[in-house]
């Protein structure tokens, strides 16, 4: 792989109380690449994603072992400020979840909570982010209207814009198109393709065709283990392991 290593997961174990949800996972993420995490429901791919920005800290009785390095620094180090970490690693969720505020305030939110007060700077960043998220042309006349008046697809792009506004280095996407219709999905996928030049993108998806379309590298999870990871084109034409092949060809179970 001739790209810069951005994040590196080393021997990660994750426990919900006594249940071991992730077992000995080691995986690298490269700048400028989209990595897709696939696998059946409950395989741990979403749990894994949420370890990457310490979203799992919120779950009581959960425990993490192993290391996750962001630019060679362990994000689980006790010196790390979680809020700062999360402003470096943005997240887009399964269901579009804009705040019940105006479109402008939604995008500005991340800037405000991170202490930016300069009004022109905020306005510029909002415009820029909406542009990056390919939403500006659709909303430029109504950025002071409620974000909840947008369509599902637009709301999801707004959520992407909201994440982009604070210029994260890595963007985590948890099934970002699963609640959208095919056209909205296509727009999100095109957007991912555009954004990967600037960000390291990690996406969890149920939709294998989507993984195949948008990602450069695919990792297959099963029962809390990382089974196989490879370049997406290789994994989808000639996977090395039978388990992977059975899953992607639908021969499972």
């Amino acid at each position, binding site marked *: 792989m001739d790209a810069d290593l951005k994040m590196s997961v080393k021997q990660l174990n994750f426990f919900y109380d006594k249940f071991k949800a992730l077992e000995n996972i080691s995986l690298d993420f490269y700048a400028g690449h989209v990595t897709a995490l696939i696998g059946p429901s409950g395989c741990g791919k979403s749990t894994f994603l949420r370890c990457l920005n310490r*979203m799992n800290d*919120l779950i009581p009785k959960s425990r993490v072992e192993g290391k996750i390095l962001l630019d060679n620094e362990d994000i689980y180090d006790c010196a790390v400020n979680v809020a700062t970490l*999360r402003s470096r690693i943005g997240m887009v969720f399964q269901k579009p*979840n804009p705040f*019940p505020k105006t479109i402008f305030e939604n995008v500005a939110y*991340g800037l405000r909570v991170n202490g930016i007060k300069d009004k022109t700077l905020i306005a510029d960043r909002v415009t820029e982010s909406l542009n990056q998220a390919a939403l500006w042309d659709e909303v430029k006349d109504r950025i002071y209207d409620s974000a909840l008046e947008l369509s599902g697809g637009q709301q999801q792009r707004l959520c992407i814009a909201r994440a982009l506004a604070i210029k994260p280095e890595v963007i985590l996407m948890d099934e970002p198109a699963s609640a959208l219709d095919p056209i909205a999905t296509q727009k999100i996928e095109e957007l991912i393709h555009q954004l990967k030049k600037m960000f390291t993108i990690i996406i969890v998806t149920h939709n294998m065709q989507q993984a195949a379309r948008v990602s450069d590298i695919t990792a297959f999870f099963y029962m809390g283990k990382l089974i196989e990871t490879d370049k997406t084109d290789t994994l989808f034409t000639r996977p090395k392991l039978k388990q992977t092949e059975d899953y992607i060809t639908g021969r499972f179970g």
Partner: protein
Amino acid sequence: MTKTDVKKPITEQLALPHIKYRKFKQTIFFALFRFAALINGTALAIILFFLLKNGYKAINWTFLTQPPIDSMTKGGILPCIVGTLYLSLGAIAISLPIGIASAIYLNEYAGSGRVLRIIRLGINNLAGVPSVVFGLFGLAFFVIYLKMGVSILAGALTLGLLSLPVIIGATEEALKTVPETYREASLGLGATKLQTIFRVVLPCAMPGILTGAILGISRAAGETAPIMFTAAVFFTPDLPSSIFDEIMALPYHIYVLSTAGTEIEATRPLQYGTSLVLIVLVFGMNLAAILLRARLRKRMHI
């Protein structure tokens, strides 16, 4: 119905009496439910009608703007209206911050554990304490022990305490309706938990919190027992000048006129008039709550 023909639709195989019976049962039960709902509405209508019929003659400008005269057999009830308003506002001012803060702690911060369960048990029991006990507690603690005397402050504190469980409950419910994804989105953008609560969770929950709070207070405003030992007096013609003054209040005034007055029969119209004012006041608060919620919701773009 032991043997059914798999090829025929199941509805064709049901015995006709069975179908008729089911329909009959449904009609009966719906009628019962409707009747139960009707009793509610009728009760309110009867109360209102009764009060209006007997009380409307007493209502006039003097009644609303003058203090009582001639051993409370004539004159108005201005000190009572003002007193009740002061007590209600005071109770809100005390219980709203404490209630919201407690609910935030319980819903957003506290995990699950023994201490939390004890606190919850405490709150639930507080809700079940009879109001006269609150009154006695207010008398013993605020009036005597803290030396506040019979005063607006002591009454407001007692009423505030009385409405705390309602406010905590309403706030917790309102906080629970805020989608978890909002919190996640906010935290995911690098906001701290406190920022998330103040910028996202509370604004979203505010309509629900305020509605619950006002409903709790309007309930407390009509209480007699907690204020009769702590704030209200039999008669004082002057309006209060500080929070340490004693006052008259509508519920207590009704109680006094109808049980301990000099001429109970003669003051009947005054009693009904006062009750009408109290009910209008309480309804007014409820209406204000509804309007406020609607406005907040609109502003929140929900």
